């Protein structure tokens, strides 16, 4: 596989959950500057893959590496290089946006002045200055996602992992998210999951299609509209036995 010089590399990852084989020997790689879209129908294994990449879930078999460093070797170092925003965007509802960011910075071991500077930077980057003192429990979904992104980027990770980032956003919020991802991608790798073809085509420059826990398609997006749609439909309708 094209793992040479890859920022992130998944090598034959398998995982069972709740008695079901969710992932079967999933392999793909991601280079710095790439935005990789994990595409698949519900239950295809996208969230499980991202949870493994984020270090939240351990694979039953296979290896995940960032710049050749395995998560099993040094989980702490691994986590310092990853920013993760799960689909539900877990925030502390009792804290204000700036308090939540401050708490995250503290957990990451950042000093007071570094925290203050990075919080200012992230509030500005995601246009959150107006809600900095609002409680996280009172934010709209779009605002929650932006706070989640700000939290994930506080330590300037090399890899950003986003699970269904566009879910539930209105068109304007979706557009803002696309702009944010486009501005973030040159310095780091981004892997995001979606079941929305248009979203993936708009945000990503590579796509991996997962079907029933297996990688069924891994290619760069060449910008031909509609081509991915036809490929995805063919994969989604194919039986599990057709998996590679």
């Amino acid at each position, binding site marked *: 596989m094209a793992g040479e010089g890859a920022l992130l590399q998944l090598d034959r990852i398998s995982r069972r*959950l709740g008695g079901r084989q969710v992932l079967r020997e999933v392999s793909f790689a991601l280079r710095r500057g790439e935005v990789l879209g994990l595409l698949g129908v519900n239950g295809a294994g996208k969230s499980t893959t991202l*949870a493994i990449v984020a270090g939240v879930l351990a694979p039953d078999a296979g290896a995940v590496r960032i710049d050749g460093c395995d998560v099993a070797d040094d989980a702490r170092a691994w986590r310092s290089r990853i920013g993760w925003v799960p689909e539900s965007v*877990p925030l502390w509802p009792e*804290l204000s946006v700036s308090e939540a960011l401050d*708490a995250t910075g503290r*957990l*990451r071991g950042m000093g007071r002045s570094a925290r203050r500077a990075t919080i200012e930077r992230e509030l500005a980057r995601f246009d959150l200055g107006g809600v900095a003192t609002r409680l996280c429990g009172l934010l709209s979904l779009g605002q929650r996602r932006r706070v989640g992104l700000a939290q994930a980027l506080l330590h300037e990770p090399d890899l950003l992992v986003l699970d269904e980032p566009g879910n539930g956003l209105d068109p304007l919020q979706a557009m803002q998210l696309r702009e944010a991802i486009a501005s973030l991608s040159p310095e780091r790798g981004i892997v995001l999951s979606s079941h929305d073809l248009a979203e993936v085509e708009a945000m990503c420059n590579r796509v991996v299609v997962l079907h029933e826990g297996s990688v069924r398609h891994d290619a760069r997006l060449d910008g031909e509209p509609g081509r991915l749609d036809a490929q995805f439909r063919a994969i989604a309708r194919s039986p599990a036995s057709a998996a590679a």
Partner: protein
Amino acid sequence: MTAIAIARLDLKRLAVRPFPWVLAGIAVAMMAWQFLLGLSAFLHAEPAVPGATGALGFTDSVVGPYFLNFLQLCLVIAPLITMQALAGERRAQRLALLETAGASGAGIVVGTFLARLAFLWLLLIVVASMPLVLGGATQLDWGQFAAGLMATALCTGALTAIGIAASAFAPEPALAAAAALLIGEGLSLIDAGVRLAGGGDGWLGYLALHTHLAPALRGLVRSQDLVYFLVVTALALALAMRRVATERERG
């Protein structure tokens, strides 16, 4: 370091939630009532034994039972205040958020334990201040008071650790509360039958909370009692740490 950060975060969150305040308000009101009842009974009994040698003083007849009542209350409060600590956070995916923010399993467990313990110890300080304000007006045995306070604080720590462990293992906060309540009540009542029969020196007696509380409430500080509370606390926290550390494997 992360444990301190998590403890600060948890304390801040506890401080702005209504539930801990309601719980604390009810607890303080109940303890104030218990204290007044104990004091009233003491004042009524006092004239009947003027100058009698061996008669129980204020510390024996009011403060000891008062601390015991607080611990009976803690058997319920500790599970309620700890049930969300890990089970609720796991459900809301905030445990994973802490882990990806660089917190270790041990840091998460110790941090949440310290925050809950701080809450219960603050409550204990308020509760202990009631007999303290009478310290100038009555003959309070300061040594016995300090021994009772220390045993109560240690026992509260053990109950908090049991609550944290139950929260680490249970999938739901309600189940965590029920499990912690059962374990706490179990340790409280485990030797009840033996005590009624006049025994209590066996291993069943050693496991019971009462065995290790009673001497301290009488003013007797024994190292074996301190070790008991510290071992229960350490064991419960170690189990919780192990459980949280294997979250990645279990999914």
